[in-house]
């Protein structure tokens, strides 16, 4: 019987630190590593620890992952969920309206044609949430006149404001100085494959999803260029991905120019996802920065 690497209490300390304290800055995490193991957090030893941990965590579809906070350029480590199932869908303390708000903000940020990677607080509070719930619900019928849940109707401005604070505190969103809101570390950690599915442009050099794209790629510092040629390539990729899906929209040229709604069935069940986003995002609309730009120009 193949023996898996047994994790020591040192490994456990690292895992529990991340689970208990949330995503940690790389410097902090490496410092804990050094204090716990007595070893210098240089490349090989540190990487071996992470790799051994991930071998074990894969048993329960979790992963110890590093990501980049695109606003301060710092790397963070966290334990993330890699598969969306009924347990992770329930494993959130947020309510349906709160998750709808998060989804709305996420889409607005990613759609932002200026590539700022953030939206104003006011805009965040004014996002229309009904669309979020409708597109995320696993509807049996094609009838789109589903009732807007009363929880959504009763979601007041002050409650939304409090929710924003909570998201910032929990690191799903972050507060950027001049009254703007951006994605938090947890979002960067968890949503890697959502970014991909929604064709958020990536840096050609380091593959980081580019949420904040002013001038240079936050991942590797490469000069960022969003050129027409890449947009065309993205559209091609989008069409290919659309093939086996059960979208009601037709894969014809005019459809590319509209924001597509994916109704009902999840496109695939093995999407990577987080506890907050899970199935609420898997049925969401496909957005591309280029289609948004086209819609704005129309």
């Amino acid at each position, binding site marked *: 019987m193949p023996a898996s690497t047994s994790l020591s209490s040192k*490994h456990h300390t690292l895992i*529990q630190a991340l689970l*208990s304290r949330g995503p940690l800055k790389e410097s902090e995490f490496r410092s804990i590593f050094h204090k716990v193991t007595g070893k210098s957090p240089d490349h090989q030893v540190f990487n071996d620890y992470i790799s051994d941990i991930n071998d074990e965590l894969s048993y329960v*579809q979790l992963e110890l992952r590093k990501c980049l906070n695109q606003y301060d350029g710092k790397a963070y480590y966290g334990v993330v969920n890699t598969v969306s199932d009924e347990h992770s869908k329930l494993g959130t*303390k947020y309510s349906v309206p709160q998750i709808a708000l998060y989804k709305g903000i996420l889409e607005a940020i990613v759609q932002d044609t200026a590539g700022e990677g953030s939206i104003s607080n006011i805009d965040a509070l004014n996002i229309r949430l009904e669309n979020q719930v409708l597109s995320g619900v696993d509807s049996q019928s094609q009838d789109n006149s589903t009732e807007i849940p009363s929880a959504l109707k009763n979601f007041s401005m002050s409650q939304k404001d409090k929710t924003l604070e909570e998201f910032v505190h929990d690191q799903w969103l972050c507060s950027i100085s001049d009254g703007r809101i951006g994605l938090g570390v947890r979002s960067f950690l968890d949503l890697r494959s959502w970014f991909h599915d929604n064709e958020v442009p990536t840096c050609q050099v380091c593959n980081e999803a580019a949420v904040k794209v002013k001038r240079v790629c936050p991942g590797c510092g490469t000069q960022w260029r969003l050129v027409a040629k890449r947009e065309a390539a993205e559209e091609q990729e989008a069409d290919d991905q659309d093939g086996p899906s059960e979208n009601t929209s037709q894969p014809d040229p005019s459809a590319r120019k509209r924001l597509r709604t994916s109704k009902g069935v999840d496109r695939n069940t093995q999407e990577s996802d987080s506890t907050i986003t899970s199935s609420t995002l898997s049925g969401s609309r496909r957005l591309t920065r280029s289609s948004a730009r086209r819609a704005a120009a129309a």
Partner: protein
Amino acid sequence: MSSARDELSQFDISNEEKDKLVGEVIRCILFKTTQNNGCPIKREELTQIVTKKSYRQKNLPAFVINEAKSKLSSIFGYELRELQRSRPSSATQKTRVGSSQQSGADAKSYVIISQLPADVYKKYVENDETSHVTGFTFVVLGIIHLAGGKITEDNLWHHLRRLGLGENEDKLALEALVQQRYLQKDKVSGPEGYTLFYEFAERALDEAVNRRIKEYVMEIVQKDASPRDAD
């Protein structure tokens, strides 16, 4: 290792199937702990992961939970502590429909507890943002312990007020202790109407916790050599 294989063969499921079930039970425990803010998870919530997949083997749920316990320890360093649900208090007593033959096993619930040494836990794992909650928990349990394991609501708040806590601001924190099964409430009728009592529930009655409450209280009492004013 061969005994484990023998054990598995009696259930007629493959290793992969077993791993899948165990993984699911662990994920259920982890996510529910987050969602429920540390409230114990009922055993039936875990066993139904096995039974709802039409696995009919009688001892399979127990086997899977055992494996999950072992994995939680080896992967995360968490102990899966089993708690026996205490008798329901009179305030919450309901007739349990059709569950008479299961009442023994189903009264079990689970919490996860770190197996790291206390100093390591405090240094690297403990979340400073929630340590005041731990402090509050200890204070409440200590007071009730000194009162003999049961105390009236009025008396409890009398003592908490001396520490600067108040019924208006801190009622929710006390309620959380009830939800987390450290305490349970008991309404007792008397000549002047109802009196609300707080007493230890299974989490506080758990041997390890109970012992530590006693130890800490003893420590404090022994340190305090000077005479105190009577109330």
